């Protein structure tokens, strides 16, 4: 692990100070221990600014958006559309209406599968995924396969938990997929895939590219135009935003050519008893009353995160990851599931010999440390690795090196606690 320079310390301070903006970080867990929240890959916490932005909407100017002529509706509409602008800027979209607000990353991928997928994928066509995808980026394609009879191919990972450009290239060559859908950062391995390079290779093979950026957008600067990806999805709740909202980014030409998904108010141009015509972007994909307060909360979250600086965030997470990774690798009976820290963001998954991940998690919780245990919605990856469950510590900017150390210390205790001691059951 490299030492902190003076300039590192300067950029770190605002991140450490940010803890004060997160009320929940001050609490204790069931056992009375102070909370050490290392479950950020599942969902992050909210700063007061986000909670207040939504409260402010409800307290001061809320009404349904779209075409309301009265004051509140005008104000709500303006705030809702301004949130779209913020989101578009945050990910570097060319125009605002390429940003569609959905219920979350899962809803976003399903939208693409049911619209672009149903119209462009046919029997025998191939969709290429990686074995490390989240269920959200597997099941919608398996459902599409049930509907249209396409095939799904999975890119394997190598012994270092990585996928080389050559493997990507060869698979695209061999399968000629219509779609290559992959995660920008694995929620288990932590691996950060080279999105721009793979997108280029895929485009060279005429594949459309969908990026699951659920674990990327919150943690490093993302520019969808630089990536040149066709579709990009992520969730609000993983970037300090509210639940109930996510984003589907799509290139305008693609979105324009796609049929609508959900039918209802706002997505129509005209409805007659004989049929309907579709509204222009973004309304076309936003049927019904949208997540108004959630969009406003998400914009506040993006502003908050931007002010801290995504490069600073990425650096700090990386350092915590390095420290945790090194410590775990040095422990007897602990195995890190994932590549070396230089290849990953702030996620470290691991297994402890002879202790089930649930017991690890429960044991750590006793010391206040929150980590996830299970298959993390990546059963194919776990099956591929030959394990049923793993434990995962995942960091965000408000975590500290000290918390990393507490986590490691507690894990050592847990290991000891569950070590076999030749106990005997009471014979009745």
């Amino acid at each position, binding site marked *: 692990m490299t030492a902190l320079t003076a300039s590192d310390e300067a950029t770190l301070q605002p991140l450490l100070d940010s803890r004060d903006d997160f009320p929940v970080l001050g609490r204790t867990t069931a056992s009375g221990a102070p909370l050490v929240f290392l479950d950020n890959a599942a969902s992050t916490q909210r700063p007061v600014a986000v909670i207040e932005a939504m409260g402010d909407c409800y307290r001061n100017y809320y009404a*349904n*958006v*779209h*075409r*309301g*002529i009265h004051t509140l*509706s*005008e104000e709500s*509409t*303006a705030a809702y*559309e301004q949130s779209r602008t913020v989101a578009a800027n945050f990910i570097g979209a060319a*125009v*605002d*209406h390429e940003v569609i607000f959905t219920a979350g990353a899962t809803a976003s991928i399903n939208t693409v599968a049911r619209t672009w997928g149903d119209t462009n994928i046919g029997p025998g066509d191939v969709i290429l995924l990686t074995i490390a995808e989240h269920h959200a980026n597997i099941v919608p394609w398996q459902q599409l396969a049930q509907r249209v009879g396409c095939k799904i191919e999975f890119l394997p990972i190598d012994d270092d938990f990585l996928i080389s450009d050559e493997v990507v290239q060869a698979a695209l060559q061999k399968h000629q997929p219509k779609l290559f859908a992959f995660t920008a950062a694995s929620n288990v391995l932590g691996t950060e895939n080279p999105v721009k390079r793979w997108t280029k290779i895929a485009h060279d093979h005429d594949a459309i590219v969908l990026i699951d950026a659920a674990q990327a957008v919150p943690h490093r600067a993302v520019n969808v135009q630089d990536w040149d990806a066709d579709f990009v999805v992520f969730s609000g709740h993983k970037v300090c935003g509210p639940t109930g909202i996510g984003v589907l980014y799509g290139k305008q030409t693609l979105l*324009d050519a796609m049929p609508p998904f959900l039918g209802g*108010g*706002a*997505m*129509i*141009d*005209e409805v007659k008893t004989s049929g309907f*015509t579709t*509204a*222009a*972007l*973004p*309304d076309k994909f*936003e049927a*019904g*009353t949208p997540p108004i307060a959630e969009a406003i909360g998400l914009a506040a979250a993006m502003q908050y995160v931007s002010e801290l600086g995504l490069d600073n965030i990425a650096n700090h997470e990386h350092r915590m990851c390095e420290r945790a990774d090194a410590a775990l690798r040095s422990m007897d009976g602990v195995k890190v599931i994932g590549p070396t820290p230089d290849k990953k963001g702030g996620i470290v998954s691991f297994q402890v010999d002879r202790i089930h991940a649930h017991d690890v998690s429960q044991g750590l919780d006793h010391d206040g440390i929150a980590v996830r245990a299970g298959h993390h919605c990546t059963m194919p990856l776990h099956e591929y690795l030959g394990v049923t469950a793993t434990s995962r510590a995942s960091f965000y900017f408000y975590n500290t090196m000290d918390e990393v150390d507490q986590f490691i210390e507690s894990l050592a205790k847990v290991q000891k606690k569950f070590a076999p001691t030749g106990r005997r059951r009471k014979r009745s």
Partner: protein
Amino acid sequence: MSPSEPDIYAEHVLDHYEDPYNRGPLDTATHTDEGKNPLCGDVVHIDLKMDDDGKIIEAWFDGDGCVISQASASMLMEKIDGKTMEEIQAFTADEMLELFGHPLTPNRQKCCLLSWRILQGALKSPVAAGDDDVESNGARRKFGGPTLGEET
């Protein structure tokens, strides 16, 4: 009207609404288009007579809708009289809102921009080309891009 009245119903707006400029059909039109804002039911029809140099000799509108949409159409007809095709094409949405002269909320801007959209469409729709199929929803088909949704 009291001084606190919203500007958008200012005297000269209501004047245009009640006493519009060139409202009605123009039988000798060389270019024509019609469209609506289905979200509120505003309809505007525009007939233009252009000479061979692409200069507007006469510009007429007809329509049905709110004060904003109809008064702004009247202002626009007055404005473009005698202008060339190029001048009209260079006339931006922002200039249209400026022509109206009173700040409008986003929802009402759509009302104001309806006639502007139809005008741009009319320039590309010579009467000979047959206009039957543009009637319903023609404007929308020609003018893509983002819109505000309908009300709920």
